[in-house]
């Protein structure tokens, strides 16, 4: 059985809800880059919008846009990855609890603070009774959600899925992250929705061959795992035309990409990166998948994203690699 990425939509540092970043990407020049908001009036009524935080509005807008491209009104599954959930509401509830000594608490803030608020409110918005889940595990939150969808497609439990990646970065959280030197990279936000399924459509972006997750800070073990992953999918490293990595400029961790790529591709491999454009966030690897899908769909590799030389040959198979602090690894294999 084959799995296809049938559509995608993003709200990020780039022009919202289109793929114009592919040709005209704007790099993050600040340490803190918030998302460019879309016009939400076409997606939710003003009344409903007032009850939604910014992250939820982004999720609804990317969901509706991605589903709209496929003609699917009601997906078999809605699965989201989010590192922190609706952290703005969490902060407000926490602050109010501390300031008011656990009195006069507003239920709405609490209701909208849980991580699963996004996937479940999207389901309520679409009136979708299908499978619904949320993954919240640091830098592999999105890939976990993707893996969940892939496994259910492989076993025939579903035929299609909406898979989302959603994280916001509030000024308070940015300040706290800065204090502990969490990421030496631009802090971004993320809202990307993909529709994947077991049927090819005229607009399918690419094939989603497989996903793997690995927990280890031993680069030798990571290399073995990556090789095993390729072999499982009938591939050798030489069959990979391009690596899309989560390299973010953080000198503490970027070296692990160098070591892994050197071990995996002794002859070298063309590499793309994307976090200098979209910023780092727990679910940023979704942008890697988006970029890889568009490269396969368009058949070109934009200069802005290249790290080093262009691919020497054709680029039919892409390996997306992300490492969260060199210990939580994800591999996504894409084919034309």
């Amino acid at each position, binding site marked *: 059985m084959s799995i296809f990425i049938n559509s995608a939509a993003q709200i990020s540092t780039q022009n919202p809800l289109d793929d114009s970043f592919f040709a005209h990407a704007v790099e993050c020049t600040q340490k803190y880059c918030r998302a460019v908001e879309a016009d939400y009036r076409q997606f939710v009524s003003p009344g409903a919008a007032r009850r939604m935080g910014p992250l939820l509005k982004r999720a609804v807008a990317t969901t509706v846009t991605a589903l709209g491209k496929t003609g699917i009104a009601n997906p078999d599954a809605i699965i989201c990855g989010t590192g922190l959930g609706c952290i703005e509401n969490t902060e407000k509830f926490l602050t109010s609890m501390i300031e008011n000594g*656990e009195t006069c608490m507003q239920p709405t803030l609490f209701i909208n603070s849980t991580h699963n608020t996004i996937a479940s*409110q999207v389901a309520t918005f679409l009136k979708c009774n299908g499978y619904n889940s949320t993954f919240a*595990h640091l830098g592999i939150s999105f890939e976990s959600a993707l893996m969940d969808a892939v*496994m259910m497609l492989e076993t025939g439990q579903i035929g299609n899925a909406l898979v989302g990646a959603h994280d916001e970065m509030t000024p308070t959280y940015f300040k706290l992250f800065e204090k502990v030197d969490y990421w030496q990279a631009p802090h971004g936000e993320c809202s990307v929705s993909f529709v994947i399924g077991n049927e090819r459509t005229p607009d399918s972006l690419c094939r989603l061959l497989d996903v793997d997750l690995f927990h280890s800070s031993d680069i030798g073990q990571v290399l073995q795992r990556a090789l095993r992953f390729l072999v499982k999918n009938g591939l050798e490293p030489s069959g990979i035309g391009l690596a899309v990595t989560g390299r973010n400029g953080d000198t503490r961790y970027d070296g692990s990409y160098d070591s892994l790529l050197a071990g995996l591709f002794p002859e070298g491999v063309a590499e793309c990166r994307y976090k200098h454009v979209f910023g780092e966030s727990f679910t940023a690897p979704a942008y890697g998948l988006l970029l890889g899908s568009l490269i396969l769909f368009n058949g070109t590799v934009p200069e802005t994203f290249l790290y080093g030389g262009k691919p020497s040959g054709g680029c039919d198979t892409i390996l997306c690699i992300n490492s969260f602090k060199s210990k939580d690894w994800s591999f996504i294999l894409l084919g034309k």
Partner: protein
Amino acid sequence: MGVVSALGNGVEEHLRALLEQRSGIGKMKYLGSVHDDLPVGEVQMSNEELCEAIGIGYDERYTRTALLGALAVREAVREAGLDRRHGSHIALVSGTTVGGMDKSEALYEESLKGDCDTGFIKTQDCGTTTEFAIECFPLFDMTTTISTACSSAANAIMFGANLIRTGRYDAVVVGGSECLTKFHLNGFNSLLILDHEQCRPFDESRAGLNLGEGAGYLVLESEDSVRENGISPLCELKGYGNACDAFHQTASSSDGQGAYLSMCKALADSGLAPEDIDYVNAHGTGTPNNDQSEGVALERVFGVGKMPPVSSTKCYTGHTTSASGGIEAVISILALRNSFCPVNLNFRKRIEGLSFSPVSEPCRKELRNVLSNSFGFGGNDSSVIFSKAE
């Protein structure tokens, strides 16, 4: 399997409390909330004592969800003998929602003002809580965390089972962990769904839930792995289903559509008919809304007059939120293996409009298939079926 809750530390203490019909819900001792008149199901161990039980040195930065999780994971991997196997290729899939909120709520205010330690921000998220168990027991080469509020652990069981079904893993540890925090106690309190008395699931007079804390994990293994390692399994994970109520962020639909669908999916997945189910461990929180909605869903699945024994065990442990699907999986398996249906405590009068009452007298009977429900905010409904191993 491994478990810790207000009923005690370990599987044996849970079995004894259930058979003796002894609730662990009582007066607040550790949480330190101003709402200390609310009964809670606290684990009767301090964080220092939890560290000692895990076998690690105490550090005040450790979050309680992480400690509870590590303690239950420890029991599960030891009982299954995973810690004695070489070349481990094992995944840990855990559910939590509060994560490290216990430390954050204690330090957040100060941290925004000045230069005090803001290290808590590194452990506030859910994933770090799960990774704590991996650091304690270096057996795992993959991990992830599911956060679907009160059905998190049930969904972790399903994801882990899919890792085995698709051939990615032969052994996985699955479940969930959650400690009490002022954050979610105040959240539930603001929704007016906490009972100031002991909770009374499926009783006409029910007035809300009591929060609890704890952790519960199962070791799932493929048939091949069971055979190769000469293991006699505790039971078979026969089927599972997940559906979304898609109705309201905190309320369940009056016809229990999400719950109905998740139970139907689990039955279809297991290949069993409704009449094959011998006991239902209900979600049964004790809120007016949940028990009515779940009751209607149960009637739709099993049929009026054909209800198998149903009980909620949240009157023993409190509602342990993200951990409940793990703790209640352990309880369901204990029921299956020890041939009893746990008594639903504090029941007096059947809910008006429902055709059935929960198990209210000691009930010893042979069980072949047990269904466990876990429903979360947002209508994240999941059902899991455990069966006698053949």
